[in-house]
Each structure stands twice: as structure tokens, then as C-alpha cells.
């Protein structure tokens, strides 16, 4: 219990530090914070209005307390571009991002485990070697370039999949229930819509999956290999256990916690780089929203996204920390 409480307090500290940092970035670093928040092409009047509205002429300490108070009430500022509160905008664009992340991450998990297990079953075999070579050669592919290359092949050359977007422009999208098009189309019972939504999802998630696989498979494999080298595995083999039960009952179970670490890392990495994928595929999620705001010098959404994504990431870290003791008894005894 103390372990859980410690982790919770720590997560709150991280959030506070990040909030302070975003405050510094938006209120202290820019030469004229009001002009910064108003955007580049704002008139003198609107800059003055912003300064008055956000109290930017008051002492920094008061501003900081106001800022934190606003955050606690869910106030993330106001977007000049969409003329809407940033918090509402984020909620509006979030489902698209979540759908993309979820589909990609599940696909990634299935493939990375499958490949790593295939590699470890016959160490140094043809599968293992080609996976090692493949991951080594593909880990340097920039994700934005990979996305464009896939567009070039599957849209321009083969004409199989849509170039970009979340749903064909000429079609009417499904009614919004959950905001997840795959689920919403099924609620409507419209399988054609489901297929259209799925088609648009393939290339962006393939880009993410391939990118994650290049690094993830390598690390997952390394964890399994390190575990398979330990004396107890030799003992298990020596006493006559088949390779299958050694792999699944011993190696995989014990390698799970380093793999979990890698997976958490990968998830954080994905949250950060999903912006690139959304930009390339015109995927209307929070990354594209922040990027388009950034392009027209509307900075509140960018600052807000930095805050929110750090919060999400530390929440995930917290959840993983709470998961470790369930998987690994050694952590349990060390933590209490």
C-alpha cells in the first residue's frame, strides 16, 4: 500500500513540475507573453485584450497561481484558430488519435511477441538471423519517410488504399456514438462504413507498427535471449522438459517484466511521434490539431498538448509500476 501511495505522490510531483514548465514556456520565456498567446498576426487591440483577459500585467506569482488553478478546473486556454476552448478541442479530436493508437499498439504487440518467440525458438536459425538483420536495417528508417513511402506504393502505384484522411470525403461518416469510427459503424450495423474506416486506418497504423517493430522486436528478443541463457533454464532442460514448455513456462514468464519496461517505453515513444503520422496522413487527431495550430502561430494548443501528453505518459508509467508486482514476485517483496 505504501508503495502505491509513494507512486501516486510521485506522479503528482511530475505533473506539477510539467505544469510549471509549460507556465514558464508560455508566460516567462517569450518576450511579450500576450503577443505570444494572441498569435503572430494579432492586432495591437487583441494583444491588449488578451493581456487584460489573462491578467498578464500582474505579478508572476499571481499569474502562476491562477494558471495552476485554471488547470485544476480543466482550463487549458483558448485557441485563436478554432475559436474554441482548447480543452473542448482536445476532447473533440481525441477519439481519432486513440483509435489509431489502440489499433496500432495491439497489432504491434501481437507481431513483436510472435517474431521474438519465433527468433528465440531456434537461436541463430534462419528466422532469427533475418529478424536481426531486418530490425537492424529498418531501425534507421524515419517514420515520416516510411509513411510517405507507403502512400507512394499503396496509393500512387497500386491504387489499393486511400492516400489520407480518416473517412472518404464524399461519403457520409457514421453517426457519432463513441467517436471511434470502427465501433460507431458497427453500432449502426453498416459494414460498408466499417470497411471504409478500416481502409483509411491501414496505412497510418502500418507506419506506426513497422516503426515500433524495428526497435521493439530487437529488445524483446534480447530479453528472451538473456533469460534463455540463465542456469535455471539449463536445469529445466536437463531434467527433460521439452523446448516448448521451457520457453512458455519459464523463459517467457521471467522475461515478462523487462519486456513490460520496453513496451511502456515504446508506448511513450508512440504518443510522442504520432504527430508525425497524423500530419502525413491528415489524420484528424490531437497531434494534427496541435500541428495545424502551430503552423499559424496559435500556441495555446501546443502548450496544452505538451501538458496533457506528459500527464498521460506519467499515468501509464504509474499503471505499469503498479503492474510489476503482479507479474514479478521479486518486486513485490522489495516494494513492501
Amino acid at each position, binding site marked *: 500500500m505504501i508503495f502505491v501511495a509513494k507512486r501516486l505522490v510521485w506522479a503528482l510531483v511530475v505533473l506539477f513540475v510539467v505544469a510549471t514548465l509549460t507556465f514558464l*514556456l508560455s508566460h516567462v520565456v517569450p518576450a511579450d507573453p500576450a503577443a505570444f498567446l494572441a498569435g503572430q498576426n494579432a492586432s495591437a487591440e487583441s494583444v491588449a485584450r488578451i493581456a487584460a483577459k489573462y491578467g498578464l500585467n500582474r505579478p508572476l506569482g499571481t499569474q502562476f497561481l491562477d494558471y495552476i488553478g485554471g488547470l485544476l478546473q480543466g482550463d487549458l486556454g483558448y485557441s485563436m484558430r478554432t475559436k474554441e476552448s482548447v480543452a473542448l478541442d482536445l476532447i473533440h479530436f481525441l477519439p481519432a488519435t486513440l483509435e489509431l493508437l489502440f489499433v496500432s499498439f495491439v497489432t504491434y504487440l501481437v507481431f513483436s511477441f510472435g517474431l521474438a518467440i519465433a527468433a528465440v525458438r531456434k537461436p541463430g536459425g534462419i528466422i532469427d538471423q533475418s529478424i536481426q538483420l531486418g530490425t537492424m536495417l529498418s531501425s534507421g*528508417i*524515419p517514420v515520416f519517410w516510411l509513411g510517405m513511402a507507403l502512400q507512394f506504393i499503396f496509393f500512387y502505384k497500386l491504387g489499393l488504399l486511400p492516400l489520407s484522411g480518416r473517412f472518404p470525403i464524399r461519403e457520409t461518416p457514421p453517426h457519432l456514438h463513441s467517436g471511434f469510427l470502427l465501433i460507431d459503424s458497427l453500432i449502426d450495423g453498416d459494414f460498408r462504413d466499417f470497411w471504409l474506416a478500416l481502409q483509411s486506418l491501414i496505412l497510418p497504423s502500418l507506419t506506426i507498427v513497422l516503426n515500433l517493430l524495428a526497435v521493439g522486436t530487437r529488445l524483446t528478443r534480447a530479453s528472451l535471449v538473456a533469460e534463455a541463457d*540463465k542456469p535455471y533454464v539449463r536445469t529445466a532442460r536437463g531434467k527433460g522438459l521439452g523446448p516448448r514448455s521451457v520457453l512458455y513456462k519459464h523463459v517467457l514468464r521471467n522475461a515478462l517484466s523487462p519486456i513490460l519496461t520496453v513496451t511502456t517505453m515504446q508506448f511513450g515513444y508512440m504518443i*510522442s511521434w504520432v*504527430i*508525425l503520422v497524423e500530419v502525413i496522413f491528415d489524420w484528424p487527431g490531437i497531434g494534427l490539431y496541435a500541428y495545424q495550430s502551430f503552423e499559424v502561430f496559435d500556441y495555446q494548443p501546443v502548450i496544452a498538448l505538451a501538458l496533457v*501528453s*506528459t500527464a498521460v505518459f506519467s499515468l501509464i508509467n504509474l499503471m505499469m509500476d503498479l503492474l510489476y508486482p503482479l507479474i514479478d514476485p521479486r518486486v513485490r517483496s522489495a516494494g513492501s
Partner: protein
Amino acid sequence: MEARATPARRKWGRTPMSLINLAILVVALLAIFIVIPELVAPRDPIELDVGNRLVGPSAAHLFGTDEGGRDVFSRVVYGARYSVGLAVIIVLIAALFGLMFGAIAGMGPRRLDDLMMRIVDIFLGFPALVLALAIAAAIGRGLGSVALALTIIWWPGYARLVRGEVLSLKERPHVEAARALGVSTVALLRRHILPFVFHELNVRVTTDIGYALVAVTALSFLGLGAQSPTPEWGLLIRDSRPYFGVAWWYMVFPGVMIMLTATAFSIIGDALSGHQTGEHP
């Protein structure tokens, strides 16, 4: 350590020698591109030649031309300075800072160590790209913002690595012996601990140059870093987007260069780590 010596382990972790030679060749070429691009590039990377817009690869234009008729090969050669050069600088500064931070944490008292590692944890929790966007928003776009953002992202990893190494080296007999002889903490660190830390650090820095390159080009691709007409590789790919259905070469070659470079550094890093485990005390 024993596990490393088993034949199985050695067989699994080896990179073919030919691949390593190839990687060294790539890095040598890049060094030439960075130091004396004017000797390699056949044309000026900035000057327009509107008569030759979007021409495919040929003997005259190895990588074809862009929308301004500029030679893509020349732009790629000059671009190494910005893309690879910046990646190297970022990683070196981050490693230096991480080295100092990690060494102090590792040698210092327990409470200081705890506090410093907490700070590292906070920084490790930042989502890289969004932080870079926010920094670029606050201090303006340009390669400087990119360098600042990525250094902030990169140093904590080194701090953690160095601190871990220092902690384990502190317990080694040769360090304990030196300490018992009355060697000062600074001399201990400098003569008996850091030389061994450098081995690990070298491997990490080499591999990270590739990842930093991918990050630098990604930020430029988003328009945060280099601005036109700088021949930065990520920016080249950004500029190629409107034409990529009609001029594949414009997008393909800068991307291949990023890929080759990153892979080369990662292969060399791998080879160094294999080589150095044998020398580690």
C-alpha cells in the same frame, strides 16, 4: 559476465564483418561531405536553375532535380553538415552534461543521488516531439530550437547510464584499493572510474547519433528546424511532399541517406559494444 562467454551468446550477437566495413565506409563518406562538400557536390545547393525543374535522375543530375531545378545530389551532400553535424553536436553536448550529472550523482551521498535521479526521471517522462514543438513555439523556429529541445530530451539517458556504471565501478577492488590508499574523490573518478565509463558511453553515443539524426530531420520535416532554402535532409523531404506523386527521386534520396546514416552508426555502435565487453574490467 559468465553468460556472455557461452558460445551460444557469441554466435547470436555478431554482426558480419562486411556489414561493419560498409558502415565505416558510409561514415567516412559523410565526414567528407561535412568537411569538404564543395569537392563532392557538382553544383551549388542554393542557386536556382528554373529550366531544369523536376528532372529525373541522370548522369548530369545523379539524384534528379527539385522544383527549383537545383541538383538534389548537391543539396544532399551539403545537407550532411546540417543534419548529421547537428545530430553529432546534440549527442555530444547531451553526453557531456549527462556524464557530469551522472558522475556527481554516482559519487555523491545517497540523498543527493536520490534527488538527482528523480530529476532525471521527470525529464525522461517528457514526450520528445511535443516538447520540441512547445520550445520552438516559445523561442522561435530554427536549428537552435531543435538543438535545445533534443539536448533536453537526450541528456537524462546518459546521466542514468553513467550513474549506474559509476555505482558499480565504485565497488570494484581496484577502486576500493585506491580509496584505501587515500586517493581523493576527484582523482578516483578521473583516473580509476571514468576511463571505464567512457567505454560504455562511446557505444551509446555512436548508436544515438543515428537516432538523433532521425529526430533532427523529423523536426525539420515538421517545419520547426531549418528553414528554406537550407539543404537540410528533413526539410528536403518536407519540400518534396507536394511533388511526390510526380518526382519520386526528390523524396527518396534524402530519406535513403537518413536511413543509411542511422543504420551505419547503429551497426558501428553494435560492433563497438561487442568489442569492448572483452576489455571491460
